[in-house]
């Protein structure tokens, strides 16, 4: 599938009708392509080296997923709704990350996108210069991916891994 096609598909997943359509089950196994294969200082990666989440059998999530929950509900949820579920005017991002890959996600958040015509007035701004978003981009991605894969339910993750020193240092360096 071309990149353009994927973007279009994600764009179709919009509006209130789809907002509550997906059901939430209890935590389940990560999908094959999201499975954490490697770990580096508290961050997890897939076989392709893409950032991903890690949910333990007792529901403990990795720090990045927990952090992503917090950052999503500060920066994204006023348009995209609670728990990545969408609002009356912005698509559910938990579904969007299932249809666009990591690189498309980073591109869209950095550059924004527009869908404005006679029946749509959807505009996402560019967050490329917003440190509150860009310094936590991987956090937000792995959180949404965990939501989209059904690996974590709605709401605040109850248990989390500790924040590693490296993650803390990286955030401080990024925020300046």
């Amino acid at each position, binding site marked *: 599938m071309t990149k353009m096609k994927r973007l279009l598909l994600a764009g179709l997943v919009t509006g209130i009708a789809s907002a509550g359509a997906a059901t939430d089950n209890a935590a389940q196994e990560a999908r094959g392509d999201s499975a954490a294969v490697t770990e580096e200082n508290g961050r997890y990666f897939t076989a392709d080296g893409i950032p991903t989440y890690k949910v333990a059998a007792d529901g403990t999530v990795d720090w990045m997923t927990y952090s992503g929950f917090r950052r999503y509900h500060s920066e994204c949820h*006023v348009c995209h709704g609670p728990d990545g579920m969408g609002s009356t005017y912005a698509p559910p991002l938990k579904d969007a990350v299932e249809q666009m890959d990591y690189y498309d996600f980073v591109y869209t958040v950095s550059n924004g996108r527009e869908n404005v015509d006679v029946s749509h007035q959807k505009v996402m701004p560019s967050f490329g210069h917003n440190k509150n978003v860009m310094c936590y981009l991987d956090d937000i991605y792995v959180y949404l991916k965990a939501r989209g894969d059904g690996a974590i339910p709605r709401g605040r993750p109850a248990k989390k891994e500790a924040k590693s020193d490296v993650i803390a240092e990286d955030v401080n360096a990024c925020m300046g």
Partner: protein
Amino acid sequence: MRTIYALTSVIALSTGTAALANEALQQMMDDPTQWAIQMGDYSNHRYSELDQINADNVGDLKVAWTFSTGVLRGHEGSPLVIGDTMYVHTPFPNIVYALDLNDNGRIKWRYEPKQDTSVIPVMCCDTVNRGVAFADGKIILHQADTTVVALDANTGEVLWSVKNGDPEKGETNTATVLPVKNKVLVGISGGEFGVRGSVTAYNLETGEREWRAYSMGPDSDTLMDPEKTTMLGKPVGVDSGTATWEGDQWKIGGGTTWGWYSYDPELNLVYYGTGNPSTWNPSQRPGDNRWSMTIMARDPDTGMAKWVYQMTPHDEWDFDGVNEMILTDQEIDGQMRKLLTHFDRNGLAYTLDRESGELLVAEKYDPAVNWTTGVDMDPNSDTYGRPAVVAEYSTSQNGEDENTTGICPAALGTKDQQPSSYSPKTGLFYVPTNHVCMDYEPFRVSYTAGQPYVGATLSMYPAPDSHGGMGNFIAWDNIKGEIKWSIPEQFSVWSGAMATAGDIVFYGTLEGYLKAVRADTGEELYRFKTPSGIIGNVMSYEHGGKQYVAVLSGVGGWAGIGLAAGLTNPNDGLGAVGGYAALSDYTALGGQLTVFTLPD
């Protein structure tokens, strides 16, 4: 010399017209067959003297006609009716339609501004607009991009246009405007973008700026007199708008002004409230953060503040103070008083003397409210007028990166902007409310102009240990500070109420019902399901000897964000997650006006 003479006579002429224009507007507001201003009148009563539709016959109400606005997003505010013309507005792109009531709503003219679409994502909570105003033969529209435009009410021709703010810095508009005398008063939105709030007066004839009063800053910016401007009877002192801030933080201090304004022609005072201080992380902005969260009384001629009252010093929950200020003359302890009643987001209903700013009543109008034990009413106390904050629910005391749970109300308040109604017949206020609580975790954020500046993670859920719904529609006694009756609603009531001389009260629901209830008991007499959820305000007018009731449908706004997918309570454990009603199971997008009347 000749030039000066000519100039003087022009000024004299325009002042004369303006005085007449103001009188004409006052007469239209007094005429119940018209709906000349969004709030019904200058006092924000949202009350109709019409009684053709009443408690005995409202059950027979039928749809007379409908009108699609052609826009999908959240529809707040209401139409106006001036003479034989109805003026209907829409959310972004802010179209205005003039409909001919003598010709089945034929479109006499339409105005669609060209606005840069980049304004859309800097509007915090949907691209709503709360309607146009009328004065002196002009329809005044305040667009999303902060352009204020005066249109010829007969033709739609642009008479003047002025830019009030800069959307690139996150300055936008969602509110209506208030025409007073020869001026138009306008506010600004953008508290989630670090905008410094202000009210600006423009000349009704020319669009020229006459004064601007900021919510914070030095006295020259806030238009306050250190000696003469008072809070609870005491002078505010020098530079009160910077004194309770650390360093330059007041420059991105919030206190935006997107609510409903009222006006007392006798006292010559305009009343409005200011919004939350930026950011939502209280630890990042120590101090009382004056004058965010404040009721303001200003002279419309000069902008000078007569009195102020800060309801929620050092906000820790996003309880904007912008809700409507309702002006009534009522008896307290055998004495007629000029009162101001305000249902704040923080869950307290305030009754003040609107001449002096004296605080008379401050009581919870939802029993679920728990962040405060109440307001100190002792004038001799050091904390007079301040709410006592419960430590358990203080996001400031619990600190950054701590999740404070079970706070009631949630950030959207016990009530948001959806305006109440006052019936002089019953002496009661009819209030659309939210019944939602939250968890709130503040954390440090950095400021970038034009980018969101929030700094907290929120989860919201229906008030625990209650009826399970997310709203109530209540009748309130503002003298006793008591709920008279309360109707539980499945969703927040996000529609403006209207009481009438027919002993009934109308309101809309998020599922899309227009409901009519008895003013004395709350007993439901009528309901009709409109095509989409209602966040608009009910209005009434008479045409050709018949009374009509109209409301805009079109779900969205804050309600469309939080409730679309349904709320969850993370504290209920996994079993209950997803167990609450999702608005998306009841309604879909679509802007439509529905007009009701009795069958012939």
